[in-house]
């Protein structure tokens, strides 16, 4: 519910970080700083040994976090202490969820203050058991759609998702890129009216974030660009980036897209 509510104040900036990178202890403070800098929702990644949807930046962050002692128990502890300045969303691979037990996982989310779950390798067709658990515990299960998702399937996913719809900005994996494609704009336009849409994968600059908002998205998701700055220990630049992005999307609100 907290997520839908947040979307009533769009445009939103959603920031992804990998929990436990550089250390479990550092994560709650990072969450608070990002919230202060302007993040409206924070995706808290649970690192996995085999992150097939992620590019090198997030893979490396996951490896660092695992080495620093992150695991699912620690993950929920970290989430609990991160506070409730902004809604938190779980982001992680299905096997980690499956291994803990679906119901237990959804309940742990709820109990640690996590409002939603994004499981990038779990398409709606495979999701009903987890969906049931999420409904039971009042957690949103957020699905993804991609530029190559055909119309009928996009409709189905839009109906199945709860909280918002995660639009994958482009083919491929997570990671910073330098432009926003026509494909993304098309995808945004194709989503049925009334579904909150957040666009992620490859958004790394305020301009790109503004671009997707102008194209009709309700939120921009930034991940690898932030993870990169954390890896470098440049937390102030991270805060500045978030601030700049937040301002850029606010300015972009309601403007027509710039088509190049």
């Amino acid at each position, binding site marked *: 519910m907290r997520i839908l509510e947040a979307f009533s104040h769009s445009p939103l900036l959603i920031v992804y970080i990998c929990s436990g990178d550089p250390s479990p202890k550092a994560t709650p403070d990072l969450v608070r700083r990002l919230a202060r800098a302007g993040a409206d929702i924070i995706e808290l990644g649970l690192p996995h040994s*085999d992150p097939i949807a992620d590019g090198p930046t997030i893979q490396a962050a996951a490896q660092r976090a695992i080495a620093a002692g992150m695991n699912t128990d620690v993950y929920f502890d970290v989430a609990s202490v991160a506070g409730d300045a902004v809604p938190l969303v779980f982001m992680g691979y299905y096997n980690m969820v499956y291994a803990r037990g679906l119901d237990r996982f959804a309940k742990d989310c709820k109990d640690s203050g996590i409002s939603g779950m994004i499981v990038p390798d779990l398409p709606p067709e495979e999701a009903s058991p987890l969906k049931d658990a999420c409904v039971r515990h009042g957690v949103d299960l957020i699905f993804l759609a991609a*530029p190559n*998702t055909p119309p009928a399937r996009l409709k189905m996913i839009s109906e199945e998702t709860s909280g918002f719809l995660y639009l994958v900005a482009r083919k491929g994996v997570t990671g910073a890129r330098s432009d926003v494609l026509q494909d993304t704009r098309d995808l945004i336009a194709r989503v049925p009216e009334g579904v909150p849409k957040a666009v992620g994968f490859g958004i790394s600059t305020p301009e790109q974030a503004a671009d997707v908002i102008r194209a009709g998205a309700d939120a921009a998701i930034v991940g690898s660009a932030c993870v990169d700055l954390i890896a470098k220990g440049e937390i102030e630049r991270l805060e500045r980036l978030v601030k700049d992005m937040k301002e850029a999307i606010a300015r972009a609100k309601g403007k027509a897209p710039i088509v190049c």
Partner: protein
Amino acid sequence: MNCQIENAAGIKFGRYGGLFVPETLVQPLLELAEAYEQMKNSDEFHRELKNLLKNFAGRPTPLYYARNLSLELGRKIYLKREDLVHGGAHKLNNTLGQGLVAKRMGKTRLIAETGAGQHGVATAIVGANLGFETQIYMGEVDIERQKMNVYRMELMGAEVIPVRSGSRTLKDAINEAMRDWASTFEHTHYLLGTAAGAHPFPSMVRDFQSVIGDEARRQISEAEGRLPDSIVACVGGGSNAMGIFAPFLKDDVRLLAVEAGGRGPGKTDKIADNGASLGYGTDGVLHGALTKILQDPYGQILESYSVAAGLDYPGVGPELAYLAETGRVHPRMADDKTAIRGFRALSRLEGIIPALESAHAIGYAMSEPDALGELTIINVSGRGDKDLATVMDYENS
């Protein structure tokens, strides 16, 4: 839930299998499934495949009555000779099939993962022969261990891309190939090398490998006038096992699937000492399918271990997981030592040096002859030339 994937048949095997992949890959997989479904009914496709299997790959492979091994074990042992397939293993049966599918789908590029290099070589062969641009993902550690196979791939025009993430071995090479495919599927086919992974790979690879079992069924009937009491095959991802088992599923034939027992059951934080997903694994999702996998209690995938590179994989095909659960297939293990014994015995007794993978099946048969019945077929999935240095090192250590 109101959502359907068309052509859903064969997506699941009991609760196993499925399509646990990022949304970007769902469509390419469904398109592949559909294209394959059409080709299954195309006479021209089958003619073309049959022609390549016969004249290029060297099929049918013999079913060889192993006189000396039979004498040793006091029962009749036949060997299905996949070691004689072009390239040195059964792998080409699958790469030829998928190569033709990809060609007909209009793809111009192949990508594949490889561990020891056998599937990479089989993919490179097909890439050269059918005119694809070919790139093979291979863990940095494996590249170092398998220089000769890297060179074979390169000779045939494939590019070998070192994978530096994770454990820098097979499972990471698969991850990397999936990542590549997520952005290149329009012109690229991902040629998975075993009967694992997301739909339609488990059924498609099984179908292409079933030529092993189809031939063996005809051959044993001709030679003995009956079906065997048992069939023994080693299991990495499960393609040679499913290939020889599939045509016998409805018969009264004991199907013995031999996994890599490695150094034993013991495991540490990140590493399993074996490759026995059926034996020691638990339910989980890896590379797109729900199956048995080697994992820690949190769901992190463990690195597997086996003296045989081709069995060194922490997962297994979902159909085998299902058949093992229903009791139709009997999962068994052979540890490193047993495999090496099988390797030496077949070399010495029959003049056939088997792949270390296949040597697990032989070693198991030798140590549990009573499980075989009176008449058995062992699938010799590949030849052992690639393993000579490994065996020498093993003996010296």
